[in-house]
């Protein structure tokens, strides 16, 4: 008797998970998440930029130009995190064959690519006054450029097939294989000599003044909120596009 109860509990837990794997069930939830995250992104950006520009002190050696880290570091982190999330959903889609997983990874890719561009761009603008050059081919910068190309390649391959299912599977392989690049980016400054400095923030310690760190962390949460909101918006568009024939959708967008 106890066993059957246990089994039915498992079944229920399973059902809860699977329910949101269905585009019809996730579509309204994604809308709610999107709205909350847009509000959070706006508020956190305002607070983060205020602390970053008006509260945080000038840096001793770099002067004011260091303030680019409030954009640069969160963007670089998001570019890496989003790639891992994209690879995770692509892998889930390949293994379980769930439609929503592939849509999720497609929805994440453009935001990740934007983050990679922002990180590279702001890095170049910072590099010129501090290092004396916009660009060098060191391990950190080159591997981040490769990350950008992986995003572009993923999106191009996904769009290259007329049969969307084939595109899903082919692009998922790029996402999975490319994920190996993410730890390479992260540890590049440790494994090799690079012009790029080492990590200022490591788990458990930081070599930054406290207000500077706070501004950067608030901006990081702002970037998280923005990325989630953008991905959810794109996911809803994906759902509308792919499920366009279904009755529930006609009902939902009426």
């Amino acid at each position, binding site marked *: 008797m106890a066993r059957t109860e246990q089994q039915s509990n498992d079944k229920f837990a399973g059902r809860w998970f699977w329910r949101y794997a269905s585009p019809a069930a996730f579509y309204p939830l994604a809308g709610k998440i999107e709205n909350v995250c847009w509000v959070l992104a706006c508020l956190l950006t305002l607070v983060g930029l205020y602390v970053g520009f008006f509260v945080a002190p000038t840096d001793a*050696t770099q002067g004011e130009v260091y303030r680019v880290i409030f954009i640069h570091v969160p963007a670089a982190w998001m570019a890496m995190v989003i790639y891992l999330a994209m690879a995770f959903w692509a892998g889930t889609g390949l293994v379980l*064959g769930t439609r929503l997983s592939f849509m999720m990874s497609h929805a994440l890719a453009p935001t990740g690519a934007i983050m990679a561009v922002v990180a590279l761009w702001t890095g170049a603008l910072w590099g010129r006054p501090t290092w*004396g050059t916009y660009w060098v081919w060191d391990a950190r910068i080159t591997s981040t450029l490769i990350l950008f190309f992986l995003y572009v390649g993923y999106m191009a391959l996904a769009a290259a097939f007329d049969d969307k299912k084939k595109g899903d599977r082919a692009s998922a392989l790029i996402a*999975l294989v490319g994920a190996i690049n993410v730890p390479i980016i992260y540890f590049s400054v440790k494994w090799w000599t690079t012009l790029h400095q080492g990590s200022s923030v490591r788990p458990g310690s930081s070599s930054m003044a406290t207000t500077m760190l706070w501004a950067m962390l608030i901006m990081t949460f702002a970037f998280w909120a923005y990325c989630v909101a953008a991905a959810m918006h794109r996911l809803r568009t994906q759902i509308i596009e792919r499920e366009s024939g279904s009755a529930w959708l006609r009902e939902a967008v009426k």
Partner: protein
Amino acid sequence: MTIKQKRLALILGGLGVIAAAIALVLTAFNQNLVFFFTPSQITSKEAPTGRVFRLGGMVEAGSVKRDGVNVSFRVTDTAQTVAVAYSGILPDLFKEGKGVVAQGTLGDDGVFRAKEVLAKHDENYMPPEAATAVERATKAREMAAKTLKQ
């Protein structure tokens, strides 16, 4: 094994193989992934001769001599030092005791002739007051060490 477990095993196995392959490639190309060579590596003849490479380290305190646009300084990794000759404009962050990466060739006389000099920033971000405090503490420590030696 169900079909799903089989697929998962296949993907994880494939990723493992690719990760191993990439690890081998990175290890093999280790020399080329190094952005700069340290003075110790140059002294022990690990740096390439006769071709352009980069030298990285700290600008030795008190070693910078300027003569118009011609600059000479010494780069140290605290164990070894290499003399550098350069003519051109130095980046703003170029300072004695700070990181530097110079690109050029090593002459037979042991002087590194730089074509380009870049400042390397470290991972420390602090306000000027904190930097002054750190400097003062370092100086006090050095003074104490000197006094103890005498």
